[in-house]
């Protein structure tokens, strides 16, 4: 049983050369379980994760991971960490077993027997048993992703950081990866980034919503849903009004209902059309948070 750790983010920010601010000063506390970073592309999720993984130097602020400062103690953090970037390459000429053995060596598992045991364990965890002798270059996208997760788990890390783990996968593989992540979150901190709300719904205990490098929400899924409760509406409108409605409200779903359209919107209410309140889903809550932020920023 691995004891979960705590992460304290203190005023962490990143501005790239050229003045592009990827992450504004951020304060967070991350505890046990699966913590999701949700946001559109370019919202600063990857930058945040790379800084936590000690691969990117923050511009300001710092983060303490189990007491280790990301600025001062990279080695100490890397010993606690399993990391899988979004676009990662592995060595195509090695077999799955050899690749994992190589990564185990880089994880400072020097003893041969311990290494073999670790490789067998993660192959089992990632359900790669049938492919252990297959060359990495011959694996499908989903299998590569599982191998990526397997390599991150080699040293039984207390902190697992995974960037967009389900991106580009088919539905079956996506479900498999989600289940694996949910399982892993039981005894360690898992930070995953995604722009797919369903991933968060299926795996995360708490989340942060980012937009243009700014934290819009942080808390549990229940807290996010509670915030949106009473702001989700279902109504039916003639087809010809759909375009006009789209300009006025934030749609979270559009369905056909005979010759009319049934729509799901988030907001204070719906004018001029009979609407019934609906129980918010995570997607509604996410879009609501984004819409509020956009209107506060004066965006259409």
């Amino acid at each position, binding site marked *: 049983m691995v004891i979960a750790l705590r992460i304290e983010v203190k005023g962490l920010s990143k501005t790239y050369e050229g003045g592009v601010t990827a992450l504004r000063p951020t304060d967070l506390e991350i505890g046990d379980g699966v913590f999701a970073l949700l946001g559109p592309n370019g919202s600063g999720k990857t930058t945040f994760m*790379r800084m936590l*993984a*000690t*691969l990117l130097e923050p511009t300001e602020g710092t983060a303490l991971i189990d007491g280790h400062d990301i600025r001062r103690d*990279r*080695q100490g953090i*890397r*010993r606690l*960490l399993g*990391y*899988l*970037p979004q*676009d*990662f*390459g*592995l*060595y*195509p*000429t*090695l077999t799955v077993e*050899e690749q994992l*053995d*190589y*990564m185990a*060596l*880089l*994880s*400072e598992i*020097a*003893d*041969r027997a311990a290494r073999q045991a670790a490789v067998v364990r993660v192959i089992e965890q990632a359900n790669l048993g049938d492919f252990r002798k297959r060359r990495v270059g011959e694996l499908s996208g989903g299998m590569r992703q599982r191998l*990526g997760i397997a*390599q991150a788990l080699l040293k039984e890390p207390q902190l697992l950081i995974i960037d967009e783990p389900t991106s580009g996968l088919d539905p079956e593989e996506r479900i498999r990866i989600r289940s694996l992540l949910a399982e892993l979150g039981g005894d360690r901190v898992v930070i995953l980034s995604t722009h797919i709300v369903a991933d968060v719904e299926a795996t995360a205990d708490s989340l942060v919503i980012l937009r243009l490098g700014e934290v819009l929400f942080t808390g549990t899924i229940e807290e996010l849903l509670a915030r949106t409760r009473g702001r989700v509406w279902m109504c039916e409108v003639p087809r010809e009004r759909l375009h006009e409605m789209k300009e006025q409200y934030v749609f979270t779903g559009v369905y056909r209902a005979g010759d009319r359209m049934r729509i799901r919107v988030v907001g204070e209410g719906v004018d001029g059309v009979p609407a019934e309140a609906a129980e918010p889903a995570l997607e509604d809550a996410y879009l609501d948070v984004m819409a509020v932020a956009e209107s506060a920023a004066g965006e259409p």
Partner: protein
Amino acid sequence: MSWPWPRVQQASHSLLALAVHESRMTLRGRAGWVGGIAACALAFADAALRPHLPLVGGFRASTFGGPLILTPFAIVFIAGAARRDEALAAAEVVGSRPFPGYRLSLARMLGQFGLTLLLYAILIVCSLLPSLVFAGKFASPLTPIHAFARGIVPLLYIAALTYCAVALARNALAAAVVAVYWLFIQLWGDFLARIFNFALTQNWPTYAAVGLAAVLGTLAIQRRLERAPGGRWPALLPVAAVVMLLLGVGDAWQRTAHGHDKPLHQDALMLEMAAQHPDGSPRMPGFWLPDQHGRGFSLSQTNGRVLVVCFWSPHRPGSATALEMLRTLSAEFPADQVACVAVCLSNDHAISAHVASEGRYRFPMVTDVGTHYAGRVEGCSPIAEACLVTDVPRLFVTDRARRVVADPGNISGATIDQVRATVRQALATPVPPVID
């Protein structure tokens, strides 16, 4: 403070295991196979043109196969290995590991160097095969060992420079700079002071030290850039790099100041040797040169005996036959009556000793340390100049008074019977009285 032996053992075990994976990656690539097979096929073809004796194949492996065929492949593969993570987008997966990047660099170098040496060993075998296949002659076990020893430093030196240049510049194109340097020395090395030619065996200490300094320096810089924790001896790498560099430069300085690179016009002994001329005197010009054991050998040590002197060069395959002739003569005639001496015209000073041990030649085999590239044989060394040697192999036979009795122009193409007859004639020639 306890000696951290278990940690050292564990670290070296990890390095070795990573190095094996690294060489496996290159070896499994299609380019690795194509390159390796092409290099070996070229080496075989080159040796097949001269299948006379295995030692010629061994020599060609160390002067052509290793430096000219294998090195370009090694440069390409090592540059690729140094930038592999970036090329495969694996840098972040690898970089987030606690294993220090500079140690991974070391493992990568070890893996690539090991693979290069393995390929070189296979290439040597390919160079020795033609003499077995086409001439039915087995190589002495020493032949591949010597060929390997002669090639190892230049290969590793270039390999180390390539890895270091690419790793520091963070660009595989930096290997092109090393390739230009390598090509320059290969093409123009003969026109430079010999200390600049890393392929010469006598420069081994200089280039081994400089190569090691480059590796240690690169590791020290990488370690600093990645801000790895200090460890027990934080200054060990940079200090070791500086020490190795100083040793290399010091060795080069010492060699050029007191050794083979002294300009000929400043070396009184060389000038004196070159000033001798058989046209003006019937006596064979004298010399004092190091033999295969590294001891000085003077022609005056053979006074009172008939002398058979063979000028030879490893670059001329016919030399092997001439050396065999010398072996036959030295076995047939008593040592107190006939002295056989082989003079090696090569700017690599280890060749003579290597050939002597490979061929088990017992007669003195000296190296003309003044040999340099001149475009023509008679201009390539003071002794060759003094003896008017225009082609090698070349045999001279003198009587007991060291007067040349055989026509030097004809005897190089002579059969053993002709040389034997000339030696008998020289033995029968009366020695003139010494006139004070």
